[in-house]
Protein backbone atom coordinates (compact mmCIF):
# COMPACT_ATOMS: atom_id res chain seq x y z
CA UNK A 1 0.00 0.00 0.00
CA UNK A 2 1.68 3.14 -1.18
CA UNK A 3 -0.17 5.49 1.18
CA UNK A 4 1.36 3.77 4.18
CA UNK A 5 5.08 4.29 4.11
CA UNK A 6 7.54 1.47 4.36
CA UNK A 7 9.21 2.73 7.46
CA UNK A 8 6.08 2.58 9.54
CA UNK A 9 5.41 -0.98 8.32
CA UNK A 10 8.81 -2.11 9.51
CA UNK A 11 8.32 -0.32 12.79
CA UNK A 12 4.89 -1.90 13.25
CA UNK A 13 6.17 -5.43 12.58
CA UNK A 14 8.98 -4.90 15.04
CA UNK A 15 6.60 -3.64 17.72
CA UNK A 16 4.11 -6.46 17.13
CA UNK A 17 6.98 -8.92 17.56
CA UNK A 18 8.07 -7.29 20.81
CA UNK A 19 4.51 -7.19 22.14
CA UNK A 20 4.08 -10.89 21.27
CA UNK A 21 7.24 -11.74 23.17
CA UNK A 22 6.09 -9.81 26.24
CA UNK A 23 2.70 -11.51 26.08
CA UNK A 24 4.30 -14.96 25.85
CA UNK A 25 6.55 -14.30 28.83
CA UNK A 26 3.72 -12.76 30.90
CA UNK A 27 1.30 -15.57 30.05
CA UNK A 28 3.72 -18.39 30.86
CA UNK A 29 5.01 -16.71 34.00
CA UNK A 30 1.55 -15.92 35.37
CA UNK A 31 0.41 -19.48 34.75
CA UNK A 32 3.47 -20.89 36.49
CA UNK A 33 2.91 -18.70 39.50
CA UNK A 34 -0.74 -19.65 39.90
CA UNK A 35 -1.66 -22.22 42.48
CA UNK A 36 -4.28 -23.61 40.06
CA UNK A 37 -2.04 -23.94 37.01
CA UNK A 38 -3.85 -24.56 33.76
CA UNK A 39 -2.47 -27.25 31.42
CA UNK A 40 -1.41 -25.64 28.15
CA UNK A 41 -3.26 -28.30 26.20
CA UNK A 42 -6.29 -29.99 27.67
CA UNK A 43 -8.78 -32.66 26.66
CA UNK A 44 -11.84 -30.66 25.66
CA UNK A 45 -13.67 -33.53 24.02
CA UNK A 46 -17.40 -33.76 24.59
CA UNK A 47 -16.98 -36.81 26.81
CA UNK A 48 -14.88 -35.01 29.37
CA UNK A 49 -17.75 -32.61 29.99
CA UNK A 50 -19.81 -35.41 31.42
CA UNK A 51 -17.50 -36.10 34.29
CA UNK A 52 -18.36 -34.49 37.62
CA UNK A 53 -15.70 -32.62 39.59
CA UNK A 54 -15.47 -35.71 41.79
CA UNK A 55 -14.58 -37.82 38.76
CA UNK A 56 -17.85 -39.68 38.31
CA UNK A 57 -19.09 -40.26 34.78
CA UNK A 58 -22.68 -39.12 34.34
CA UNK A 59 -23.24 -40.34 30.82
CA UNK A 60 -25.95 -42.79 29.86
CA UNK A 61 -26.05 -44.31 26.39
CA UNK A 62 -29.00 -43.81 24.06
CA UNK A 63 -29.85 -47.52 24.04
CA UNK A 64 -29.83 -47.69 27.83
CA UNK A 65 -31.94 -44.55 28.05
CA UNK A 66 -34.48 -45.81 25.51
CA UNK A 67 -34.71 -49.13 27.37
CA UNK A 68 -35.53 -47.33 30.60
CA UNK A 69 -38.00 -45.19 28.64
CA UNK A 70 -39.80 -48.22 27.24
CA UNK A 71 -40.04 -49.82 30.68
CA UNK A 72 -41.21 -46.50 32.07
CA UNK A 73 -38.46 -46.64 34.65
CA UNK A 74 -36.87 -43.25 34.12
CA UNK A 75 -37.99 -39.65 34.34
CA UNK A 76 -36.66 -37.45 31.55
CA UNK A 77 -35.88 -33.83 32.37
CA UNK A 78 -35.47 -31.30 29.57
CA UNK A 79 -32.78 -28.76 30.52
CA UNK A 80 -33.38 -26.49 27.54
CA UNK A 81 -35.48 -23.35 27.48
CA UNK A 82 -39.25 -23.59 27.70
CA UNK A 83 -39.63 -22.48 24.06
CA UNK A 84 -37.39 -25.25 22.83
CA UNK A 85 -39.25 -27.71 25.02
CA UNK A 86 -42.59 -26.58 23.61
CA UNK A 87 -41.32 -27.00 20.07
CA UNK A 88 -40.54 -30.64 20.71
CA UNK A 89 -39.29 -32.90 23.48
CA UNK A 90 -38.90 -36.52 24.52
CA UNK A 91 -42.37 -37.92 25.16
CA UNK A 92 -43.38 -37.47 28.77
CA UNK A 93 -40.34 -35.36 29.63
CA UNK A 94 -40.61 -32.67 32.28
CA UNK A 95 -39.36 -29.19 31.45
CA UNK A 96 -36.84 -27.72 33.89
CA UNK A 97 -34.70 -25.13 32.09
CA UNK A 98 -31.32 -25.08 33.82
CA UNK A 99 -31.21 -21.31 33.87
CA UNK A 100 -34.45 -21.19 35.81
CA UNK A 101 -33.77 -24.27 37.90
CA UNK A 102 -33.43 -22.34 41.14
CA UNK A 103 -37.02 -21.20 41.24
CA UNK A 104 -38.73 -23.79 39.02
CA UNK A 105 -37.17 -26.77 40.72
CA UNK A 106 -39.84 -27.39 43.37
CA UNK A 107 -42.73 -27.16 40.93
CA UNK A 108 -41.07 -29.23 38.19
CA UNK A 109 -39.81 -32.00 40.42
CA UNK A 110 -42.95 -32.34 42.51
CA UNK A 111 -43.99 -35.98 42.65
CA UNK A 112 -40.65 -37.31 41.43
CA UNK A 113 -39.07 -39.38 44.16
CA UNK A 114 -35.42 -38.88 45.02
CA UNK A 115 -34.87 -42.58 44.43
CA UNK A 116 -36.13 -42.64 40.85
CA UNK A 117 -33.88 -42.75 37.83
CA UNK A 118 -33.63 -39.27 36.34
CA UNK A 119 -32.15 -38.55 32.90
CA UNK A 120 -31.38 -34.98 31.90
CA UNK A 121 -30.85 -33.91 28.32
CA UNK A 122 -30.38 -30.85 26.14
CA UNK A 123 -29.28 -30.56 22.53
CA UNK A 124 -25.91 -30.64 20.79
CA UNK A 125 -22.72 -32.54 21.68
CA UNK A 126 -21.28 -29.62 23.56
CA UNK A 127 -24.41 -28.46 25.32
CA UNK A 128 -23.64 -28.27 29.01
CA UNK A 129 -27.11 -27.46 30.35
CA UNK A 130 -27.94 -31.12 30.93
CA UNK A 131 -24.71 -31.80 32.83
CA UNK A 132 -25.14 -28.67 34.93
CA UNK A 133 -28.72 -29.62 35.67
CA UNK A 134 -27.67 -33.16 36.58
CA UNK A 135 -25.13 -31.83 39.07
CA UNK A 136 -27.80 -29.46 40.42
CA UNK A 137 -30.28 -32.31 40.90
CA UNK A 138 -27.69 -34.51 42.59
CA UNK A 139 -26.93 -31.71 45.01
CA UNK A 140 -30.66 -31.43 45.62
CA UNK A 141 -30.75 -35.04 46.77
CA UNK A 142 -31.51 -37.04 43.63
CA UNK A 143 -29.22 -40.04 43.79
CA UNK A 144 -29.70 -41.55 40.39
CA UNK A 145 -29.19 -38.82 37.80
CA UNK A 146 -27.69 -39.44 34.38
CA UNK A 147 -27.07 -37.30 31.31
CA UNK A 148 -28.10 -38.26 27.81
CA UNK A 149 -25.46 -36.54 25.69
CA UNK A 150 -26.77 -34.71 22.62
CA UNK A 151 -30.11 -36.00 23.88
CA UNK A 152 -32.77 -34.27 21.81
CA UNK A 153 -31.05 -34.72 18.43
CA UNK A 154 -30.06 -38.32 19.11
CA UNK A 155 -33.55 -39.20 20.34
CA UNK A 156 -35.26 -37.63 17.35
CA UNK A 157 -32.86 -39.12 14.79
CA UNK A 158 -33.53 -42.58 16.14
CA UNK A 159 -37.26 -42.17 15.73
CA UNK A 160 -38.00 -42.53 19.42
CA UNK A 161 -41.30 -41.14 20.76
CA UNK A 162 -41.50 -37.36 20.95
CA UNK A 163 -44.14 -34.86 21.85
CA UNK A 164 -44.89 -31.19 21.29
CA UNK A 165 -46.70 -28.76 23.51
CA UNK A 166 -49.43 -26.73 21.91
Amino acid at each position, binding site marked *: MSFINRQICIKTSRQVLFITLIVLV*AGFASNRLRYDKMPLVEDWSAKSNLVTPSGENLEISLSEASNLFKKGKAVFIDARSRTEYDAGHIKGATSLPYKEADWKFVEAMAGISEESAVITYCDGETCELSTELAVFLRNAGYKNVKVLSNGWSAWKQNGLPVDTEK
Partner: protein
Amino acid sequence: MKEKIRQKISMTLYHGSRIVLGIVFIYASYDKILHPAAFAKIIYNYQILPDELVNLSALFLPWLELITGSLLIIGVWLPGSVFISNILLIIFFCALMYNKARGLDISCGCFSTGEGEAPESNLYLLRDFSFIVISVYLFIKVFISDSPGNRGSSLISP
Protein backbone atom coordinates in the same frame (compact mmCIF):
# COMPACT_ATOMS: atom_id res chain seq x y z
CA MET B 1 -7.27 30.84 14.55
CA LYS B 2 -9.85 28.50 13.04
CA GLU B 3 -7.10 26.14 12.03
CA LYS B 4 -5.81 26.12 15.58
CA ILE B 5 -9.21 25.18 17.02
CA ARG B 6 -9.58 22.44 14.46
CA GLN B 7 -6.21 21.07 15.36
CA LYS B 8 -7.06 21.17 19.03
CA ILE B 9 -10.29 19.25 18.49
CA SER B 10 -8.47 16.74 16.35
CA MET B 11 -5.81 16.24 19.01
CA THR B 12 -8.39 15.82 21.77
CA LEU B 13 -10.33 13.30 19.70
CA TYR B 14 -7.17 11.38 18.91
CA HIS B 15 -5.89 11.19 22.48
CA GLY B 16 -9.40 10.58 23.81
CA SER B 17 -9.94 7.61 21.47
CA ARG B 18 -6.55 6.18 22.35
CA ILE B 19 -7.28 6.34 26.06
CA VAL B 20 -10.87 5.09 25.83
CA LEU B 21 -9.83 2.10 23.73
CA GLY B 22 -6.95 1.43 26.12
CA ILE B 23 -9.30 1.41 29.11
CA VAL B 24 -11.68 -0.94 27.27
CA PHE B 25 -8.87 -3.41 26.62
CA ILE B 26 -7.52 -3.30 30.15
CA TYR B 27 -10.99 -3.65 31.63
CA ALA B 28 -11.66 -6.61 29.34
CA SER B 29 -8.45 -8.36 30.32
CA TYR B 30 -8.70 -8.06 34.08
CA ASP B 31 -11.26 -10.74 34.90
CA LYS B 32 -9.87 -13.14 32.31
CA ILE B 33 -6.34 -12.90 33.68
CA LEU B 34 -7.72 -13.78 37.10
CA HIS B 35 -9.81 -16.69 35.84
CA PRO B 36 -8.12 -18.34 32.85
CA ALA B 37 -9.93 -21.64 33.33
CA ALA B 38 -13.37 -20.02 33.18
CA PHE B 39 -12.28 -18.06 30.12
CA ALA B 40 -11.02 -21.27 28.49
CA LYS B 41 -14.48 -22.76 28.91
CA ILE B 42 -16.02 -19.76 27.19
CA ILE B 43 -13.56 -20.03 24.29
CA TYR B 44 -14.32 -23.71 24.05
CA ASN B 45 -18.04 -22.99 23.90
CA TYR B 46 -17.52 -20.79 20.86
CA GLN B 47 -16.45 -23.98 19.07
CA ILE B 48 -14.20 -22.10 16.69
CA LEU B 49 -10.70 -23.04 17.79
CA PRO B 50 -9.33 -26.58 17.76
CA ASP B 51 -9.20 -28.06 21.27
CA GLU B 52 -5.41 -27.80 21.44
CA LEU B 53 -5.56 -24.02 21.13
CA VAL B 54 -8.31 -23.39 23.68
CA ASN B 55 -6.14 -23.16 26.80
CA LEU B 56 -3.31 -21.38 25.04
CA SER B 57 -5.67 -18.65 23.85
CA ALA B 58 -7.25 -18.39 27.29
CA LEU B 59 -3.81 -17.89 28.75
CA PHE B 60 -2.32 -15.42 26.31
CA LEU B 61 -5.25 -13.46 24.88
CA PRO B 62 -6.00 -11.56 28.12
CA TRP B 63 -2.34 -10.56 28.44
CA LEU B 64 -2.36 -9.38 24.85
CA GLU B 65 -5.39 -7.24 25.69
CA LEU B 66 -3.77 -5.88 28.84
CA ILE B 67 -0.51 -4.97 27.15
CA THR B 68 -2.19 -3.53 24.06
CA GLY B 69 -4.47 -1.47 26.29
CA SER B 70 -1.60 -0.20 28.42
CA LEU B 71 0.44 0.80 25.38
CA LEU B 72 -2.56 2.64 23.93
CA ILE B 73 -2.99 4.62 27.15
CA ILE B 74 0.68 5.38 27.67
CA GLY B 75 0.99 6.26 23.97
CA VAL B 76 4.05 4.12 23.40
CA TRP B 77 4.52 1.79 20.41
CA LEU B 78 1.31 3.07 18.90
CA PRO B 79 1.67 1.58 15.41
CA GLY B 80 2.08 -1.89 16.94
CA SER B 81 -0.67 -1.56 19.53
CA VAL B 82 -3.17 0.07 17.16
CA PHE B 83 -2.50 -2.64 14.60
CA ILE B 84 -3.09 -5.37 17.20
CA SER B 85 -6.22 -3.70 18.55
CA ASN B 86 -7.72 -3.62 15.05
CA ILE B 87 -6.92 -7.26 14.45
CA LEU B 88 -8.32 -8.32 17.83
CA LEU B 89 -11.56 -6.37 17.51
CA ILE B 90 -12.15 -7.69 14.01
CA ILE B 91 -11.53 -11.26 15.17
CA PHE B 92 -13.97 -10.76 18.08
CA PHE B 93 -16.53 -9.32 15.70
CA CYS B 94 -16.25 -12.31 13.36
CA ALA B 95 -16.50 -14.73 16.29
CA LEU B 96 -19.64 -12.99 17.54
CA MET B 97 -21.17 -12.95 14.06
CA TYR B 98 -20.37 -16.62 13.57
CA ASN B 99 -21.92 -17.34 16.92
CA LYS B 100 -25.06 -15.40 16.12
CA ALA B 101 -25.40 -17.08 12.74
CA ARG B 102 -25.31 -20.48 14.38
CA GLY B 103 -27.71 -19.36 17.08
CA LEU B 104 -25.43 -20.59 19.85
CA ASP B 105 -26.69 -19.62 23.25
CA ILE B 106 -23.41 -19.04 25.04
CA SER B 107 -21.96 -16.27 27.14
CA CYS B 108 -19.86 -13.72 25.34
CA GLY B 109 -16.75 -13.69 27.50
CA CYS B 110 -16.18 -10.14 26.32
CA PHE B 111 -15.61 -8.43 29.64
CA SER B 112 -16.00 -11.09 32.23
CA THR B 113 -15.80 -14.81 32.70
CA GLY B 114 -18.98 -14.97 34.77
CA GLU B 115 -22.18 -16.55 33.57
CA GLY B 116 -24.12 -13.48 34.62
CA GLU B 117 -23.63 -11.96 31.21
CA ALA B 118 -26.82 -13.03 29.50
CA PRO B 119 -26.29 -13.83 25.84
CA GLU B 120 -27.40 -10.81 23.85
CA SER B 121 -25.60 -11.10 20.54
CA ASN B 122 -26.92 -7.95 18.84
CA LEU B 123 -25.78 -5.81 21.71
CA TYR B 124 -22.35 -7.45 21.70
CA LEU B 125 -22.02 -6.89 17.97
CA LEU B 126 -23.01 -3.26 18.25
CA ARG B 127 -20.65 -2.70 21.14
CA ASP B 128 -17.74 -4.36 19.35
CA PHE B 129 -18.54 -2.41 16.22
CA SER B 130 -18.31 0.90 18.08
CA PHE B 131 -14.86 -0.13 19.35
CA ILE B 132 -13.87 -1.04 15.80
CA VAL B 133 -14.86 2.45 14.67
CA ILE B 134 -12.57 4.00 17.29
CA SER B 135 -9.80 1.57 16.45
CA VAL B 136 -10.02 2.15 12.70
CA TYR B 137 -9.98 5.90 13.33
CA LEU B 138 -6.74 5.48 15.30
CA PHE B 139 -5.36 3.29 12.53
CA ILE B 140 -6.01 6.02 9.98
CA LYS B 141 -4.46 8.62 12.26
CA VAL B 142 -1.37 6.56 13.01
CA PHE B 143 -0.76 4.94 9.64
CA ILE B 144 -2.22 7.14 6.97
CA SER B 145 -2.86 10.75 7.83
CA ASP B 146 -0.03 13.04 8.67
CA SER B 147 -1.73 14.39 11.75
CA PRO B 148 -0.99 14.13 15.46
CA GLY B 149 -0.89 10.38 15.45
CA ASN B 150 1.89 10.01 12.99
CA ARG B 151 3.96 12.76 14.46
CA GLY B 152 3.53 11.20 17.87
CA SER B 153 4.35 7.73 16.73
CA SER B 154 7.52 8.73 14.96
CA LEU B 155 8.93 9.74 18.31
CA ILE B 156 8.61 6.29 19.68
CA SER B 157 10.26 3.16 18.50
CA PRO B 158 11.29 0.11 20.41
